[in-house]
């Protein structure tokens, strides 16, 4: 039973990340491989405040993490998007590698390669959520709120503006809309989703280390959105649930443990290529 709870909880956290990636890559059409870096920043900030000498309670820490991730994403996207899309490819690779370097080498703040153990469980209004069931409820609530927000934003004029930018940027600019501002706002929103997901992840696992937030993790997030389907809410939900089940299926095959991680990553890469070749809309998405 605990296995199912933790699978569902983890998948729900990845739904939030899927929404974040989908917003950037699917809706606005900005290629990004730095989603895991932002996710990591959120996780480390929440862990920092909960592990402090005078621990903060969970919700304010989560709020601070979300704000920091928003700021980070705005700071990162603004200079690159001002110039061109391909500059952002370089920026996102750079941010991802830089974040991994910071997570691994800034031992005082992040525990370095050993990570941060013993992160306390989250608390709501002075009530600590210690059982897996309660944590699952919390993450379900978080994912549901995220999905609701995504759905409402996509129905709002702002959502239509983002979709229009993907179709034809110059037409949107000619209609007097500020394209750069819309793109940066979308990136900010994506940052908030990733930051919240990071906070939930840190408290759920109670241990974080750099390997959860590296380039491979970013590629996994991209694969989730591509497989589930870009640009739709359903896609961001299907993708994480499917791809988190995949490693379990792989354990049924008789693969030596030394190459299991490479095999998993290889499969994600293969999925990216095959879906781009034969079904760019994913399982339940729209044309990418």
């Amino acid at each position, binding site marked *: 039973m605990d296995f199912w709870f933790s699978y569902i909880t983890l998948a729900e956290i990845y739904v939030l990340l899927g929404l974040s990636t989908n917003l950037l*890559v699917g809706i606005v*059409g900005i*290629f990004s*491989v730095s989603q895991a870096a932002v996710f990591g920043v959120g996780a480390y900030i929440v862990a920092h405040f909960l592990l402090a000498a005078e621990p903060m309670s969970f919700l304010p820490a989560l709020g601070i993490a979300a704000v920091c991730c928003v700021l980070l994403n705005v700071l990162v996207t603004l*200079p*690159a998007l*001002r*110039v061109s*899309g*391909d*500059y952002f*490819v*370089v*920026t996102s*690779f*750079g*941010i991802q*590698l*830089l974040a991994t*370097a910071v997570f*691994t*080498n800034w031992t005082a703040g992040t525990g370095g390669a050993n990570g941060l153990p013993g992160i306390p469980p989250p608390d709501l209004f002075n009530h600590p959520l210690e059982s897996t069931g309660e944590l699952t409820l919390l993450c379900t609530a978080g994912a549901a709120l995220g999905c609701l927000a995504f759905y409402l934003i996509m129905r709002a004029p702002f959502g239509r503006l983002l979709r229009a930018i993907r179709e034809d940027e110059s037409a949107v600019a000619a209609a007097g809309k500020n394209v750069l501002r819309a793109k940066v706002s979308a990136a900010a929103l994506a940052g908030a989703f990733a930051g919240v997901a990071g906070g939930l992840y840190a408290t759920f696992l109670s241990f974080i280390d750099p390997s959860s937030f590296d*380039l*491979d993790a970013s*590629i996994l997030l*991209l694969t989730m959105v*591509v497989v589930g389907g870009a640009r739709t809410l359903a896609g961001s939900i299907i993708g994480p649930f499917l791809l988190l089940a995949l490693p379990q299926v792989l354990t049924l095959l008789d693969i030596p443990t*030394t*190459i299991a991680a*490479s*095999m998993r*990553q*290889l499969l*994600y*890469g*293969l*999925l*990216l*290529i095959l879906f*781009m*070749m034969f079904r*760019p809309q994913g399982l339940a998405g729209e044309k*990418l």
Partner: protein
Amino acid sequence: MLWLQLLVNGLETGCALGVVAISFSLIYATTKIFHVAHAGIYTMGGYLAWWLVTLGVPFLVALLFAVAACTAGGALIQSQLYARLERRGATHLVILIASLGTLAVMQNIIAAVFTPNILQFPIPWASNVVVLGGSVRLTWAQLLTIAVSLAAYFAVMWFAHYTILGKRIRAVASNPFLAQITRLRPQSVYVIVVAIASAIVALPGVLVPLDLGLQPYGGITPLLTATIAMIAGGVGSLTGAFVLSIAIAELQNLSLLVMPGEWSIGITFFIFVIFMLFRPTGLFAAR
């Protein structure tokens, strides 16, 4: 005299990086594809050469074989993946994601076959040290890298400006539509360009690990630094890409005087942000 040693080391990494940068620049300026999988080609070259050397093949033969295999690999990616996607009217983003997928596949096949650990070439002469000017120490591998990289740079410059094929490539790069009308067939030129660039990138792909060792995921940082050099040098300018590669490598090496090496990605990225903010078209912008 530490700084002199660092300057010379910077020249060596810069030259190797410069070759990566001009090969990437050839592809990017011509096909407009941000060919992330180029990092995979770079890594593949090194591992193939390592495999052959451990089988007892002479180093030069292994190097040539790696170059040939990378040429084929690059041509395959362009003709079987990018060209197909383009025929189906795929967007820029779709091609980019496919390229990232190809990189992940290549790196992880290498990691599964050769283990993710660092591998060293079993070539004793490569680490023999030459002392220059009394205090600067260089290994044979480093000297070879500098010589081959400079030769590759001049060869590419000559090729692009004085051969018919080079002129064709530049014609397609500057205006694919016009090239199509004059029956230059951009798609077949693209395959040739990616093949040539993959052959060139195999050189640093083999020579740099001779000194530093091989890692399956080791291609991304050089490629990222090279793309930053290309952008800072001005897209389309091979000289700009090469010169800026050396400049960035020098700055990275000199920064070792004040901070530890694991932060050098920070220096590189800082340079990129400065260029984005103040001179996004690069120093040697062609147009």
